[in-house]
């Protein structure tokens, strides 16, 4: 059967194919192939096929004369010989036509693996035969590629999210453990820069008059040479609200991001940034009580492809640092409050002894007064009585001197005990001296209450804040007096000895053991069994805090039949070492 097909029909059926005669000359070319040749700058006039195509498949021995016949029945891969930068391959087959094989049909289709290749060749859907599976292939490929891109994006985002959350976790732990706020902020700036590969971080603080931002002096910059000018400018400048990145953050109370500050006229330090780079930056506020107290700024010259995640990261970082600074501010307030309470408790102890102390001071004053009266009334001595007169005078002076010394001791003890010794250094100090100072202000109270004060004290040196140890002892002695006044044959005993590196001081009184329900709450702040207005309820809890600050302990020994408090304070090194 012979079938005659028009070239117009061939154009529709085989738009990328061509016909070759026995001499290898192109005799017909499909419309889409002509289009490609045009796009590649090849004249589509009829010429020898091998001037247009090179054969990639099947592999041929270049030393042998090439014959088309060897391609028969094989997959044919041809490459377009073009000087343009377009690389065009075709796949197809060779078919002999006519009874005597007068023609060869090169039945071809372009070999494409992405849509963009078709666009470059100026090809579109109408250039292909209807229903050409290449479009199915491209659709599937595009869909696959899109899915891959999406999953890659998601993976990339997860990696960054993980990175950011791990960094925030570290910052959170560090902030929670940090005692010193400024050190914490400096460390956070460093960690963020190192982890994210940012170039510069710096802290601004609001000036005392609340009018400007100034450098806190804290910054992180691994490449100081490059940033020398910028650092100097930063440290020299003061910024108003809305001025520069930090000023905007300050005014708005919110994080602010800029994609490039190097060209920003509103950024006063732009000219000092290392040149030839686009500097993106972010500023985050640190607030206390809703007011901006500080601004952190970070700069980077790298393109930040993860901007949405970075924005979330910096926002969370700002929240964390705000919480850190607020926590620190709370602790400072709490410490101040604690100081006031301690001072109040000390004064209360002294207040309780005020009557005794005034009596204590009045006694030596009376002695002095009596001595002076006696000396005024002394008649001039007869020559024979000079020695006797002199000895009377000297005896009076001696008594008065002792009285003065006594008053001095009391005043010294009061001064020591009314002070808040929290800021004092830890020093090696003899326990005997502490006891002497303490007893000087409360001995009269014992005497007036008819309480016997027993002492069995080994002398040793404590590593302590002496004022605070005195405050504990004074507190214990006062409590003991309050507890046992009015009893028959009342007594208080102070025992001190060293044991396993600690100085152990026990204060016992003749009162029976403290009832369980009272004992349980004894160290609770503001718990007191004294009548209203007589005690603050802070003495024992403060004593325990002081002992803990000394790395020691303060306990009620409930194993005894008497009320016994035990204070353990580390010995000064010379004694504690064997």
């Amino acid at each position, binding site marked *: 059967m012979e079938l005659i097909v028009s070239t117009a029909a061939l154009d529709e059926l085989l738009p990328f194919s061509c016909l070759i005669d026995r001499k290898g000359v192109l005799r017909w070319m499909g419309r889409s192939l002509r289009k490609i040749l045009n796009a590649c700058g090849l004249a589509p006039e009829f010429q020898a096929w091998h001037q247009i195509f090179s054969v990639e498949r099947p592999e041929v021995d270049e030393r042998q004369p090439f014959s088309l016949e060897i391609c028969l029945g094989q997959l044919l891969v041809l490459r377009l010989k073009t000087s343009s930068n377009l690389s065009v391959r075709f796949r197809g087959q060779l078919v002999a036509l006519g009874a005597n094989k007068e023609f060869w049909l090169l039945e071809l289709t372009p070999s494409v693996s992405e*849509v*963009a290749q*078709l*666009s470059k060749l100026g*090809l*579109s*859907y*109408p250039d292909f035969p*209807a*229903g050409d599976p290449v*479009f*199915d292939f*491209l*659709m*599937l490929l*595009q*869909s696959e*590629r*899109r*899915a891959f*891109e999406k999953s890659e994006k998601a993976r990339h985002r997860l990696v960054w999210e993980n990175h950011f959350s791990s960094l925030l976790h570290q910052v959170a732990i560090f902030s929670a453990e940090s005692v010193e706020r400024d050190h914490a902020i400096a460390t956070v700036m460093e960690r963020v820069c190192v982890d994210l590969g940012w170039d510069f971080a710096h802290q601004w603080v609001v000036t005392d008059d609340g009018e400007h931002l100034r450098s806190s002096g804290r910054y992180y910059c691994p490449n100081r040479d490059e940033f020398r000018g910028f650092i100097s400018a930063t440290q020299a400048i003061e910024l108003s609200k809305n001025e520069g990145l930090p000023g905007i953050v300050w005014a708005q109370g919110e994080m602010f991001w800029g994609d490039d500050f190097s060209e920003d006229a509103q950024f006063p330090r732009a000219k000092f940034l290392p040149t030839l780079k686009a500097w993106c930056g972010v500023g985050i506020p640190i607030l206390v009580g809703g007011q901006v107290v500080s601004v952190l700024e970070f700069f980077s010259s790298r393109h930040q492809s993860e901007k949405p995640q970075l924005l979330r990261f910096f926002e969370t970082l700002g929240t964390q640092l705000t919480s850190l600074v607020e926590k620190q501010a709370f602790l400072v307030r709490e410490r101040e409050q604690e100081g006031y309470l301690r001072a109040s408790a000390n004064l209360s102890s002294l207040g309780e002894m005020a009557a005794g102390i005034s009596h204590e001071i009045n006694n030596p004053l009376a002695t002095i007064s009596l001595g002076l009266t006696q000396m005024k009334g002394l008649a001039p001595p007869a020559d024979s009585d000079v020695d006797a007169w002199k000895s009377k005078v000297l005896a009076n002076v001696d008594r008065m001197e002792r009285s003065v010394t006594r008053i001095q001791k009391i005043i010294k003890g009061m001064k020591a005990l009314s002070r808040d010794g929290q800021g004092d250094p830890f020093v090696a100090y003899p326990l005997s001296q502490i006891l002497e100072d303490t007893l000087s202000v409360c001995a009269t109270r014992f005497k007036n209450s008819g309480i016997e004060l027993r002492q069995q004290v080994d002398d040793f040196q404590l590593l302590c804040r002496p004022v605070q140890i005195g405050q504990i002892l004074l507190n214990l002695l006062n409590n003991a007096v309050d507890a046992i006044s009015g009893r028959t044959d009342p007594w208080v005993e102070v025992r001190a000895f060293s044991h396993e590196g600690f100085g152990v001081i026990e204060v016992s009184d003749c009162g029976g053991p403290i009832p369980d329900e009272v004992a349980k709450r004894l160290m609770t702040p503001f718990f007191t069994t004294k009548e209203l207005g007589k005690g603050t309820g802070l003495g024992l809890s403060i004593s325990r805090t002081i002992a803990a600050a000394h790395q020691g302990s303060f306990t009620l020994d409930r194993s005894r039949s008497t009320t016994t408090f035990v204070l353990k304070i580390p010995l000064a090194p010379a004694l504690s070492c064997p």
Partner: protein
Amino acid sequence: MYGLVNQAVRDLIVSRFGQEKWATICRRSGVNDDEFEAMKAYPDHLTYALVGSAAEVLGADAGDLLKAFGEYWITFTAQEGYGEMLDLFGSDLITCLKNLNGMHAHMGVMMPELQPPRFQIEEMGDKRYQLRYFSKRAGLAPMVMGLLEGLAKKHGNTVKVQQMPRDPAQDHELFLIEIVS
């Protein structure tokens, strides 16, 4: 419909009205999980429910919403990576419309459950065209109007699209398109 359509509905609502409105729309339509998979087929009623609830929540006409969605679909598919593919089916509006059936046929390879509409375009002269729209789904004619306007915009044209009254004897909707510029 495929998840890609539901994703586009979500994107349109979120970008224009915010995440909160979208959450309300989901609750009202009984959609618990709005993480639609683009290449997974979902029941049609889910998409209809979303559009219906959106109209209620936003106080908008469902037809207007569908039209806005049709126009947005062109932008959305382009940003989802199918823009280049769409370009292959025609570098001008009319060629593109003529090849829509072919495009849908090829899309069937990656979306085997696709039930695409069918279009017939006929030139009336003087830059006026008749477009016949055949679909198994009811009520989506406003979306086609939006699609036509979106496609025209993509090719730099302005068109007037008019939907003709439906002839109950016919199985399609008829649109008149006039290319204004």
